[in-house]
């Protein structure tokens, strides 16, 4: 009996924690940014190529939402030329100064928490975990933030001969190992993160045209 009560309590606690906090858009709507500067990404994964690859996925979803997005490659190269090739330095620099430099209304900071593939015995799982923070260029205040985790595991054909299953798992693992599908997964993460209504941001000034 106590066990049952305990498990119910535990369940309540777990589900209670899981409910997503409804985001407060008051600051975002007050700031009404027209343009977003995407600065180089901080990488906490071991994959050194992750930040650049990720950078290629982030412009389109934001521009399609109706924001002016600064050209990411130009921004990255300019910061590198100014000795700011370390994205950690850029993320810690003053938001106001950075925005002034580019004339941006807001700055988007992305951190890659996870960007890897796990090779399990019977399947391979690709993981992408990203944190997005948009800060106001004038005040430096956080206007919006979100964490998005995506997991991809190739579909296993259930049933059939166990040996056939094992072979297909090995093949899947080999494919994922050769070229883990991070970029489509990162794009999916971006799409989900920016969906509005939802966790995302309201449409920008060019959305209606």
């Amino acid at each position, binding site marked *: 009996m106590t066990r049952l009560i305990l498990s119910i309590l535990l369940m309540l606690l777990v589900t209670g924690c899981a409910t997503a906090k409804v985001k407060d858009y008051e600051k975002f709507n007050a700031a009404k940014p027209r343009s977003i500067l995407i600065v180089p990404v901080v990488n906490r994964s071991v994959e050194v190529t992750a930040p650049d690859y990720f950078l290629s996925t982030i*412009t389109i979803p934001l521009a399609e939402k109706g924001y*002016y997005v*600064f050209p990411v490659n*130009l921004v990255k190269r300019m910061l590198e030329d100014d000795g700011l090739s370390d994205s950690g330095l850029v993320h810690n620099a003053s938001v106001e100064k950075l925005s002034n430099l580019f*004339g941006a209304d807001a700055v988007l900071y992305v951190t890659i928490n996870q960007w890897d593939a796990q090779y399990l015995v019977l399947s391979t799982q690709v993981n992408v975990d990203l944190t997005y923070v948009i800060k106001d260029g004038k005040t430096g205040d956080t206007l919006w933030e979100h964490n998005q985790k995506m997991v991809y595991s190739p579909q296993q054909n259930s049933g059939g001969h166990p040996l056939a299953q094992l072979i297909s798992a090995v093949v899947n693992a080999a494919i994922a190992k050769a070229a883990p599908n991070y970029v489509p997964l990162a794009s999916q993460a971006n799409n989900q993160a920016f969906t509005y209504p939802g966790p995302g941001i309201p449409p920008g000034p060019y959305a209606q045209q």
Partner: protein
Amino acid sequence: MKKLKYCFVMATILVLTGCVPQTKYAWNGYDQKLYDHYKNPTESEQFVVTLKEVIEYGENVGKVPPGIYAEYGYVLYEKGNFNEAILYFKKEQDKWSESKVLMTKMISNANKIAAQNEKRKESTTEKSVPITGDAK
């Protein structure tokens, strides 16, 4: 039965057209090309060509995405093609008022470097005169 078939065809068409992503801008594979550029940085020429294509296509359909003129201008700038770079920085500025601060900066940088290069060229030709003079 015929009606059913008709319904099925209509439904398929609806699903198919629904699946075609309607984008605001003509990206024309910009994301893929940027990815390729980071994957094979040595093939930068391909990136330049691609950006030009995105612009041409975008202008044809009237949907040039934000930032693309500037991105193209910057690769020209890096190649030392300053006059053409300025042309594209100006295009970006005219189309997107949000880019004005950055584009003004880029244009003035490009002008400065172009002027410097011009000076250097002049000074090297000036230098070469007395050398040949001494030789005489």
